[in-house]
């Protein structure tokens, strides 16, 4: 149902008691600041903006290999909430290597499995935001790919 790496992360979180789940989220949140572009990296698409739906600026950087495998880098402004930071690191790891089409098909219903239903509630809906942004960039990449294909007469 979910792509392999993401499925492993989901399975791990589902096996954890609540206290350890929170600890793991904190660890992932700390790792979020390491998800940004590294020196010398180039990207096919860069989408940096501040949306109404999120408390700070989020930058999404996408590189697609000739084999059509995606690699994401993400930058987060300092006001982004902890859960959103955690989801950023989880998604960068869990979606790494998927094709743009596979990215588009990832259902959002895995979020409560990782975060726990108690934490997904009013005022924490931005946990879905990062996935939406990643899909948005993948969609743009696919549209560009389609428009670049020569059309027959």
């Amino acid at each position, binding site marked *: 149902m979910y792509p392999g790496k993401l499925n492993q992360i989901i399975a791990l979180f589902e096996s954890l008691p609540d206290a350890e789940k929170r600890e793991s989220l904190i660890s992932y949140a700390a790792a979020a600041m390491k998800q940004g572009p590294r020196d010398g990296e180039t990207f096919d698409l860069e989408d940096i903006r501040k949306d109404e739906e999120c408390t700070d600026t989020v930058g999404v950087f996408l590189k697609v290999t000739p084999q059509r495998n995606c690699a994401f880098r993400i930058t987060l402004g300092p006001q982004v909430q902890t859960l959103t930071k955690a989801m950023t690191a989880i998604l960068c790891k869990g979606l790494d290597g998927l094709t743009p089409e596979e990215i588009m098909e990832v259902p959002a219903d895995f979020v409560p499995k990782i975060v726990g239903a108690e934490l997904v509630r*009013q005022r924490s809906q931005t946990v879905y935001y990062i996935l939406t942004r990643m899909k948005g960039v993948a969609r743009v990449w696919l549209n560009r790919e389609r428009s670049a294909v020569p059309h027959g007469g």
Partner: protein
Amino acid sequence: MSDKNYAHPEALVTTEWVEGHLADPHVRIVESNEDILLYDTGHIQGAVHIDWRSDLQDQTIRDYITPQQFSALCERNGISNDTTVIFYGDKSNWWACYALWVFRLFGHTKVKIMDGGRDKWVAEGRHLTRAVPHFAHGHYTPLETRCDAEIRAFYDQALAQSRAGMALIDVRSPAEFRGEVTHMPEYPQEGVLRGGHIPGAASVPWKMAVKDDSTFKGVNELRQIYEDEAGLQPGQDVVAYCRIGERSSHTWFVLTYLLGYKNVRNYDGSWTEWGNRVGAPIERG
């Protein structure tokens, strides 16, 4: 303590004061945030975490916990009836003020806000810890009923306030007040069907009361904002509202403790109740 000529300067403490009272057995420090995991990433030494939703609200009905549940919450956090509780948190102390207001619903009057909140503590480079404190259980005798009548307004009371032309303060952003948006900037839609404001309400966004470092403005500036510009008068009955009651708790704290208004109520049902209520009158623009 504050020296800004507030009506109740004892209701505010500085970050320095808090740092000097970390081991005070008569004081309990409470962190209350919007960011649900922020406390877990690090907090003031000895601070306990009280969550606005899971700790203070009933988990089924849109209402607060019972006095007995409040008593149990306090006791497990080492809070007794005579404990002085210092609240601080993120978002310029929105949820700290909300938690303080809820403590007042249960008659706990020994309450204070750490001016500037979590952001100021962090900006000053003060120590944070991930160690969760464990205190001996407190001894808390609950009230028989909550003090809702004194500081809380319900829909019917807010409607009566509107119809009587009495003071209503809408503390949301100007665009929310005008009905141009049904969520606050930088937040997702939270389920409101209609935009606008309660007829007769004055728009005084909560943020007017704080400086860039999240500390409260001095009393002269506050009087200019709330009295000279918004038309409030000391002694008036005032009802404040926002979307779910946290930003209006902040304004309730300002009017009650910093300006000394005696009859301020927080309409915690706020716009998520009013904007969804069938037949509720709404003004736009």
